[in-house]
C-alpha cells in the first residue's frame, strides 16, 4: 500500500496569462497517492486552465510542476501521457463506429508479431479484445463482448469506455474533466462508481465537477479554486456543502490550515 501522504503530482506558483487576462495567478496544487481530489470553482475561476496545465494541454508561463517530487515539463498532452497522466473529457471521447476494443486502444493499437504485424501492419485484434475485457472486468463493468460498436451503447456506457481507456493506460494519475456533464442521473452514478473502482486500484483521481453531491460523494479532499489560484483545500467530512459553496464564491474565508493545503 502507498502511504496516503505521498504526493504524486504537485504544482507551485503556476502563472498563465492571455494578454491582459490572467487565467492562472500563482496557483498551488497537490495530489496525494490513492486519493480522489475534487477540483471545484466558479465559472471563470480558472480551474480548467489549471487542469490543462496538469494534462499538458497548456504550457504555463512560470511556476513548476513536479511528479514524485521531480520537476516535469509538459509541452503537449502526449508528454503528460508519457508520464502516466490520462484525461477523461466531458464530451464522450469515443468513436461511434468502432468497437469497444478499438476505442480502448485508439492511438495505441497493438500490432501482431512477425511478418503480418511488421510488414502488413496487421492489428492484433484478439489481444486487444482480451485485454479490453480484462480492463472492463477490472473496473467491474459488466459487458459481455468487446466487439460491439460503441454506437450501440448508451451515453453512460460510452463514458465507461473512455474511463476504461484512461484507467488502462494511466499508470499514475487519472484526470476527469466534468465526466458526467453530458450524462443523466443514473449514468452519472455509474461513472461515480467507476471513480471509486479506480481509487480502489490505488490510482489517484482528479475530479473536476460542478455537481456538489457528486463531489461530496466520492472526494477525499476538495481543492477550491478561486480567482485563478487555490483558495484552499478542505475536508468534505469537516465542511458542509453550503460552506464549500461559500468558500468557492468568496462569501466565506478558509481557515489558515485549509489555505495552506489542508491537513
Amino acid at each position, binding site marked *: 500500500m502507498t502511504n496516503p501522504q505521498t504526493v504524486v503530482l504537485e504544482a507551485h506558483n503556476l502563472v498563465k496569462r492571455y494578454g491582459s487576462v490572467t487565467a492562472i495567478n500563482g496557483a498551488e496544487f497537490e495530489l496525494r497517492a490513492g486519493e480522489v481530489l475534487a477540483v471545484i470553482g466558479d465559472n471563470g475561476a480558472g480551474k480548467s486552465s489549471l487542469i490543462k496545465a496538469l494534462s499538458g494541454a497548456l504550457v504555463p508561463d512560470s511556476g513548476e510542476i513536479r511528479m514524485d517530487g521531480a520537476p516535469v515539463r509538459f509541452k503537449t498532452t502526449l508528454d503528460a501521457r508519457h508520464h502516466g497522466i490520462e484525461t477523461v473529457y466531458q464530451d464522450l471521447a469515443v*468513436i461511434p*463506429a468502432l468497437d469497444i476494443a478499438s476505442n480502448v486502444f485508439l492511438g495505441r493499437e497493438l500490432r501482431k508479431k512477425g511478418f503480418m504485424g511488421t510488414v502488413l501492419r496487421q492489428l492484433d485484434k484478439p489481444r486487444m479484445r482480451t485485454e479490453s475485457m480484462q480492463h472492463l472486468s477490472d473496473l467491474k463493468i459488466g459487458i459481455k463482448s468487446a466487439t460491439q460498436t460503441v454506437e450501440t451503447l448508451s451515453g453512460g456506457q460510452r463514458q465507461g469506455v473512455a474511463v476504461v*481507456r484512461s484507467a488502462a493506460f494511466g499508470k499514475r494519475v487519472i484526470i476527469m474533466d466534468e465526466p458526467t456533464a453530458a450524462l443523466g442521473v443514473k449514468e452519472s452514478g455509474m461513472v461515480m462508481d467507476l471513480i471509486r*473502482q479506480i481509487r480502489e486500484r490505488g490510482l489517484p483521481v482528479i475530479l473536476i465537477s460542478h455537481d456538489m453531491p457528486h463531489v461530496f460523494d466520492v472526494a477525499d479532499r476538495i481543492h477550491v479554486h478561486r480567482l485563478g489560484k487555490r483558495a484552499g483545500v478542505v475536508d468534505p467530512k469537516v465542511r458542509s456543502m453550503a460552506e464549500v459553496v461559500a468558500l468557492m464564491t468568496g462569501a466565506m474565508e478558509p481557515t489558515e490550515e485549509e489555505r495552506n493545503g489542508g491537513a
Partner: protein
Amino acid sequence: MTTSTTQISPAPPRSRRDWTWVARQPLVGPLAALILAVIVFSIGSPRFLSPYNLSLIGQQSIVIGILAVAQTIVILTAGIDLSIGAIAVLGTIVMAKTVPQVGGVGALLIALVVCVAIGAVNGSLVSFLRLPPFIVTLGTYTAVAAASQLYAGSATYPVTSPLLTFFGQDFGIGAWRTTLGVGVLILVYAVCFYVLHQTAGGQHVYAVGGNPTAARFTGIKINRTLLMVYIMTGVIAMVAAWAALGRIPNADPNAYQTANLDTITAVVIGGTSLFGGRGSVVGTLIGTLIVGVLRNGLTLIGVDNLYQNIATGALVILAVAFDQIARRRTQ
C-alpha cells in the same frame, strides 16, 4: 466504502441462434436492394442472368467501382472528392501520351507520380490549411479537367501497349469468362478492406471522420491521416486509369465525365454516411453493383438512358434519407 458493480446492460447477444442482429446491420438494406433488382431483371429479361451479361455488368463497373473505393475512404473522413474521376482521366492521357517515349512501365510510373501529386495537393489543402474538401476538390476538378484537355490537345489517343491494356485480357472457364479488370476491382476492394479494418491507419480514418475531437485527444495525427487518405486517392485513381485503358484502349479527355458523381452515388447507396465515420467498402461494392445492375437491366428491358439517370438519382436520395433516419435514431 461502497463497492458496487457497475452494470452495463448486456450487449445484444450475437450468438448463432439469435439472428435478429442481421436486420440491424447497415449492409442489409443495400444487399436486399441488390437482390431485389437481380430478381426483377432476371424475370424481366431472359438474358440478364447469362454468363456473358453478368461479366458485362462486372466490366462496366470496373472504373467507377475502383474509384468508389477511394471515394468511400475520403467520405469516411467526413470529406468528399469531386476531382477523383478527372484525376483518373488525366492518368489515362498521361499514360497514352508518354508510352511511345518511355515505354509501358515508364508511362505507368509517370501517371502514378502525376495522380499522387494531385492527391497530395488536395490532401495538403484539406489538412494543413483546413479548407473544406468540397471546395478544394471542386477547384482541382476544374483545373485537372482543363489540364487534361490542354495536354490532350482535344484529341484522343488509342493505346496499343500490351502492358497498358493488360487488364483487358479475359480469363475464365467455358462460358464463364471475364476480364482481368474485374479481378483488379476485387483486389482493390480486398486491399482497402484490409487496410481499413486491420490496420491502425484504417481505424484512424474512422476516428477522424467519426469524432475528430476524440481522435485528437487520443493522440491521432489528424493532418497526417487526412493527407494519407488523399494521397491514396491518387494511387487508386492511377489504378483506375490503368484498368480503364484495359476496358477501352483509348485515352479520351471527354471520357468518364460523370465519374465523380457516379462514385458518390455508389458510396451513398452502399450505406456510407456523408457525415463521416460510418460505412464500409463492402457497402460501396454493393452500391456499385446496384448501379451497374440497374443500368444494365433497364437497358435490357428497353428503358431509355435518361430514365435510368432518373432512377439512379431517386435511389441516391432514398439512400441519404435512410442514413439520416438511422442517425436520428442512434442519437
